[in-house]
């Protein structure tokens, strides 16, 4: 048995482990969500299909799951859109315009993104309290924008610096203003980059937990991760089926997006992290 044969066996074993490790909890969630009893493993595989969990989570008003879902989608979408816009403006200035302290801005923003959230959240809590923004959409959207900006800026700077400069020179010759160049030349050319940045920004906002747990009180603004984390049964027993159905509804769209746009997402992650 040569090195090559051994290598391919190791690769196959490794891949099986990799797939099982990554998919198992996800599949477990799906199975529990469609099972009548969450304890079928203990009763030796007595699995019974039931759609009650989905029915319950979607129809019982007092669970507020659909409210959480709507809050999450609105907050994440608005945050992602504004973040990409602001980061796009800044990335244009940093890659194209005469600007003193470009490197300082980039490094400053990088350092900011390393602050632990806990060192921000108590001040934000009282700041939002003074503005009467606790438990509102804007109370989450503003911190989210600031929180996701560093990553978005780094990704977009990396994209914009690859767009040939001749394009904007042509625009300058035609007498466009800088704003017009950005809007009519850079943004359309960088559309894939803007899209993948927005996608990442959306996922980051959708997944955020600590701000949401501190700055929301109830279903008026509470997001899905917090809602699911705080789900408790009415009578002590944790309603696992319902929780897993809610988790499935909340995560499957994101997972499908990830599958559809995997190239964009992977590019976003690597540009945000690796680009120096």
């Amino acid at each position: 048995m040569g090195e090559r044969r051994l290598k391919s066996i190791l690769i196959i074993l490794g891949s099986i482990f990799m797939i099982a490790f990554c998919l198992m909890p996800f599949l477990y969630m799906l199975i529990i969500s469609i099972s009548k009893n969450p304890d079928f493993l203990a009763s030796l595989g007595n699995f019974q299909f039931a759609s009650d969990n989905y029915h319950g989570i979607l129809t019982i008003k007092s669970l507020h799951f659909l409210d959480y879902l709507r809050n999450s989608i609105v907050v994440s979408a608005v945050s992602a859109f504004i973040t990409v816009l602001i980061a796009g403006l800044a990335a244009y200035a940093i890659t194209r315009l005469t600007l003193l302290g470009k490197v300082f801005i980039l490094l400053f923003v990088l350092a900011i993104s390393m602050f632990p959230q806990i060192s921000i959240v108590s001040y934000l809590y009282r700041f939002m309290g003074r503005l009467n923004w606790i438990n509102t959409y804007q109370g989450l959207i503003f911190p989210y924008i600031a929180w996701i900006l560093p990553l978005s800026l780094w990704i977009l700077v990396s994209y914009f610096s690859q767009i040939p400069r001749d394009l904007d020179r042509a625009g300058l010759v035609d007498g466009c203003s800088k704003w017009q160049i950005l809007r009519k030349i850079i943004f359309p050319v960088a559309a894939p980059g803007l899209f993948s940045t927005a996608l990442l920004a959306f996922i980051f906002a959708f997944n955020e937990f600590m701000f949401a747990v501190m700055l929301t009180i109830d279903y008026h603004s509470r997001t899905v991760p917090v809602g699911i984390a705080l789900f408790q049964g009415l009578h002590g027993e944790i309603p696992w089926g319902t929780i897993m159905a809610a988790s499935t509804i909340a995560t499957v769209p994101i997972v499908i997006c990830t599958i559809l746009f995997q190239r964009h997402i992977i590019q976003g992650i690597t540009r945000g992290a690796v680009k120096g």
Partner: protein
Amino acid sequence: MIKKYTLKELSESYAFVAPLIIFVLVFILFPVIGTFLTSMFRDVAFLTKEFIGLDNYKKLLVDSRFWQSFQFTILFTAVSVPLELGLGLLFALLLNEFLPFRGLLRVCVLIPWAIPAAIAARIWELIYNFHYGLANFVVQSFGFSREPINWLGTSGTAFFSLVVSDAWKTIPFVAIILLAGLSAIPDEIYRQAQVDGSNFWQRFFRITLPLLRPVLVVALLFRTIDALRIFDLIYVLTKGGPGGSTTSLSFYGYKYFLVSDFGYGSAVSVTLFAIAFGLSIAYLRLGKFKEEIL
């Protein structure tokens, strides 16, 4: 050079950057400064605010629960980050091979990354369920243990459980950025090395690892900072228990904010901030230093 810039041009450029700067200042930098200042006050709900200098920090030094969470946070980081980097590198190496269904495999690896940490924690909470969770089912049916294990109920197994769930959630990130680093290494180098008769391990240690070092440093930096501030998983899985043994610094600070003791909670937060900041500077120095000798 500077003479070429006109004031008008500069102010126009700064207008483009201004929204970014304002957002980051108002919602991140000022809060951090605010937390820093608050940490020097006795700032508890219903009591008058009073400047007490470093008293909160002096109290930290003799607070055994603080040291317990300090120890947990460091230990958790020290165990989970190397594990995640190791497995992440393994996954990246696998994904870099010419496998059938390579795209599909990459998607599988991305899935844990896309799931919100709090929801992932809920799934793991069910997996670790004492009576009917998947973990005990696997452990018992493979005969590793006759009795079910109380995964989240004893401090050793709770620590282990947290490390595993955190690894699941974060390995994709490591694998993806290391994969980018791997695919940037030209195949020629490997082919040349193979012609020279080197074996797999020699190629791994003499080519792959050195060329991957900058990307590894980045992954190490991001993962360390993330592991130090772990919060979501603990909030859902253990609530810091049993007996406070899995209380991270983030969670410890949060507990004080919850009872409106802002002064002391801020001191805890500033401590975590200082650790994270110090480590990131150390890593960046390390990265730079290595660039210089390369």
